[in-house]
């Protein structure tokens, strides 16, 4: 991201500031906000029966003739080069069809890194993939073995002999800080924001806090391992992949392998969890190349260790947050700066200051992120990248300030909520964080909190309550396409390449299509997970639902025109124009005169058509450049800390969300809870242990990296304001990521309330409390 981009985004924002809202997408609120039938209803997942029966087919489960299995060999060295490579024994081992190393790997270019301007750029790393004998990070793949069975491939992989000449690697965070880079922008925002003189305000304020907060690396740990089953048919490539980016992967693979776009087909109807990790990485490229060399279909499933070695996770950070306040508790300075790891061959900037930019107003602001370069598998986006850990630092600091001032921490927050976006000055499209706090505090029983820490004890246990704010921006992706097909029997099919990783994609979009088209739910079929369908954006940034919804709304508009044309003059609708009708009761009706109505069946029958089909792209998502569109939440936590062992047990967790319209309360509640549970892991147990001496991850297993297990997870209460966002399709904003934000701070603040100990380094393990 460049300075040029800052200027472009800046001037688009300024220009849009002058454009009347009604000219822009979202200028007139989506009529479905007022007219909901299926949307907003509790509905079980449409794919539930398949999933509970084990009938949902995942990428590594596709049967193929002559299939061979792949095993990868990873470098134990962090930097250096291969000095000896002997594959003879492996090649001679039973069942082996191919040993692939940099010697025989086809020569390929590198993947364009994930970016905002080219939607087919989805690479997480721009390093060459097995093109030479260089080792650039610990765990890099140095060889791949194909054999008739997995057991044979695993055995043969162990027979490959490799020697390395190790070189000095950059592995120490603290040492690398000196050489940190300051990028011009973070995603689409200008990186360095400086308003007033924050340091001077800090020095002169009656109240201030100024601390460093540290968060470790983390891994996504979706339970499904990264896997693909791939087959070449001549110059055509078929990839069954576990991916969050069906269409973009297909386009990127076509480019990399020099194929026509239509000759690559990526299928991914079900993904066993992604959280940002299931993008395009080395393993897909390696498996596809090996399948080509061997002339056989290949299945490659990473080992759990392999996932840690070659799929990056969340970057570790060191963040400084300083806040100053005047005697009334108004913020006079807000400083959020820090360091995260992003090697130059990676693309994901861990945007931990993003929440800070929109949450509070302050007279002076100083925000800047710096990137550290280590020899490491490139980090990537992991659920609420930036916000998950940025809110830990910011919201711990707010709590510290409230304690220093003797003010209730909710009250302090409410005093500093902004009217408009504090930095861009743009009006909020909808923003009710204050209400979320009041509603949440009431339900949680916040008034029972004792302001003085360490004063509630029950036997061995110290009891504490804490709260914190979560936040996540709205986004809608350009380039979202949907095809709507009406059939002669009056049913409809909605098609796009979208992905399902547990969000309930099909369920919610079928609810949407039912209301959009005036049909019952069971008249709608949703097709997805196939790059041969009209391209949907990747599942990321909590924007899939809104992006598809925008495209479906555009397709529905187009369909109305098409149906009016087919209906001709011999219809009760004759003479009405597209703007004067709408979908209703399995057909089209006049808006002013609803009695003028004709059903789809009747229109299609008279026109002698089996189907009518339209494809449309969503409008350019300019709404979120003109308006400040942010979801926010208030998270409340009640916990116990053992005075004997320092063990923390979370007893209650409540999330009160302000995220626009909730489309399906059942699946939404599950997504909120899921995010909050990952937040408990972030707060208390999760840490990718990186050995700074060797550059190697030490706990590359699910036994040593503790994700929350059943006994760690209390009953989680969720609620929402449900106020529609007048600027977004359906009034909805994304909900997949916000759940995790704010949770770590709510836990840390509750730990402080229980014990009087302030832990500024995650995870909050027992040793830090003894």
């Amino acid at each position, binding site marked *: 991201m460049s300075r040029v981009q800052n200027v472009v985004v800046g001037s688009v924002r300024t220009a849009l500031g002058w454009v009347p809202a009604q000219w822009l997408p979202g200028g007139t609120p989506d009529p479905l906000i007022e007219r909901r039938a299926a949307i907003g209803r509790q509905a079980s997942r449409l794919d539930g029966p398949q*999933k509970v029966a*084990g009938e949902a087919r995942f990428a590594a489960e596709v049967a193929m003739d002559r299939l061979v299995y792949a095993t990868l060999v990873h470098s134990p060295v962090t930097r250096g080069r291969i000095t000896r490579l002997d594959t003879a024994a492996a090649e001679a081992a039973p069942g082996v069809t191919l040993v692939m190393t940099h010697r025989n790997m086809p020569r390929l270019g590198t993947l364009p890194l994930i970016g905002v301007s080219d939607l087919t750029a989805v690479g997480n790393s721009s390093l060459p993939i097995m093109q030479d004998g260089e080792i650039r990070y610990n765990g890099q793949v140095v060889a791949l073995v194909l054999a008739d*069975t997995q057991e044979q491939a695993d055995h043969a992989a162990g027979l490959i002999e490799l020697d390395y000449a190790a070189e000095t690697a950059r592995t120490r965070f603290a040492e690398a800080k000196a050489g940190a880079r300051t990028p011009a922008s973070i995603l689409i925002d200008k990186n360095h924001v400086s308003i007033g003189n924050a340091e001077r305000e800090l020095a002169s304020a009656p109240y201030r806090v100024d601390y460093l907060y540290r968060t470790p690396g983390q891994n996504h740990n979706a339970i499904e391992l990264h896997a693909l089953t791939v087959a070449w048919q001549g110059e055509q490539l078929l990839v069954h992949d576990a991916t969050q980016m069906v269409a973009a992967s297909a386009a990127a693979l076509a480019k990399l392998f020099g194929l026509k776009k239509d000759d690559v087909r990526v299928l991914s109807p079900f993904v066993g969890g992604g959280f940002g990790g299931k993008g395009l990485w080395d393993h897909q490229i390696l498996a596809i190349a090996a399948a080509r060399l061997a002339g056989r279909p290949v299945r490659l499933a990473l080992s759990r260790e392999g996932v840690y070695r070659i799929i990056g996770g969340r970057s570790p950070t060191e963040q400084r947050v300083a806040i100053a306040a005047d005697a009334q508790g108004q913020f006079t300075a807000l400083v959020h700066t820090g360091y995260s790891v992003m090697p130059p061959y990676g693309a994901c900037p861990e945007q931990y200051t993003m929440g800070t930019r929109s949450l509070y107003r302050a007279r002076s602001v100083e925000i800047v992120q710096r990137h550290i370069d280590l020899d490491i598998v490139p980090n990537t986006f992991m659920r609420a990248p930036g916000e998950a850990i940025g809110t830990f630092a910011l919201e711990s600091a707010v709590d510290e300030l409230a304690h220093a001032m003797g003010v209730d921490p909710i009250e302090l927050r409410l005093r500093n909520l902004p009217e408009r976006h504090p930095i861009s000055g743009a009006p909020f499209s909808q923003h009710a964080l204050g209400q979320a706090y009041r509603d949440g505090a009431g339900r949680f029983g916040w008034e029972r909190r004792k302001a003085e820490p360490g004063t509630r004890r029950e036997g061995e246990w110290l009891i504490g309550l804490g709260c914190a704010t979560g936040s996540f921006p709205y986004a809608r992706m350009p380039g979202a396409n949907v095809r709507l097909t009406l059939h002669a029997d009056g049913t409809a099919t909605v098609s796009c390449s979208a992905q399902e990783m547990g969000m309930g994609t099909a369920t919610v979009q079928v609810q949407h299509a039912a209301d959009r088209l005036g049909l019952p739910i069971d008249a709608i079929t949703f097709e997805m997970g196939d790059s041969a369908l009209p391209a949907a954006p990747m599942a990321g940034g909590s924007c899939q639902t809104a992006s598809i919804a925008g495209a479906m709304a555009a397709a529905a508009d187009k369909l109305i025109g098409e149906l009016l044309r087919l209906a001709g003059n011999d219809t009760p609708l004759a003479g009405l124009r597209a703007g004067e009708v709408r979908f209703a009761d399995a057909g089209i009706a006049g808006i002013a005169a609803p009695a003028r109505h004709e059903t789809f069946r009747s229109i299609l029958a008279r026109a002698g058509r089996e189907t009518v089909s339209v494809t449309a792209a969503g409008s350019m998502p300019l709404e979120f450049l003109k308006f400040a569109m942010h979801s926010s939440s208030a998270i409340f936590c009640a916990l116990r800390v053992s005075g004997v062992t320092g063990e923390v047990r979370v007893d209650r967790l409540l999330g009160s969300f302000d995220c626009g319209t909730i489309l399906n309360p059942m699946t939404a509640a599950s997504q909120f*809870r899921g995010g909050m549970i990952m937040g408990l892991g972030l707060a208390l147990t999760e840490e990718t242990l990186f050995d700074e001496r060797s550059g190697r991850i030490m706990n590359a297993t699910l*036994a040593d990296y503790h994700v929350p*297990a059943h006994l760690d997870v209390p009953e989680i209460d969720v609620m929402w304001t449900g106020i529609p966002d007048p600027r977004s399709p359906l009034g909805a904003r994304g909900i997949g990521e916000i759940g995790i934000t704010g949770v770590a701070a709510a836990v840390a603040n509750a730990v402080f309330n229980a014990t009087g100990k302030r832990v500024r380094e995650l995870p909050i393990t027992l040793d830090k409390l003894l």
Partner: protein
Amino acid sequence: MAIMINGAAVAAPGDARVSLLDLLREQLHLTGTKVGCNQGACGACTVLVDGERVLSCLTLAVQADGRSVTTIEGLGSAESPHPLQAAFIKHDGFQCGYCTPGQICAAAAMLREAEAGMPSYLTADLTAAPVLLSRDEVRERMSGNLCRCGAHNGIVDAILEVAAEHAA
């Protein structure tokens, strides 16, 4: 001898290295049994062997020779679900659905363990049979089955509902 898998006899594989998990998934295409770690840490591969829950990734297929294996496909189907499968849908006890077959197989065995009076580390009365399943008892007994989507609340609700039906 043979392995009985969901009621059908299957010959044990010739290669002794083949895990029960890989026999099911790769040779028999019973892909309802999932794999999340291949090292006994996640529970996704849980199946029932002679009615007891085992991690099929840590079981060699030949160890199941002469025994009876039930996988998620043997418990029920989309058309005629097992009560636990139906309860998981009702309580939204899953999101991506990948850990789900393992959770359901584990829960089926766990209910029988409690009924038989097998204590957990939370059971106060070690001699009680059946063990009354509190929410925390279920959580403790199910902690070997990880869910990264965070469907824990729904999973426990689903299991408690089926446990209550059992008891009634």
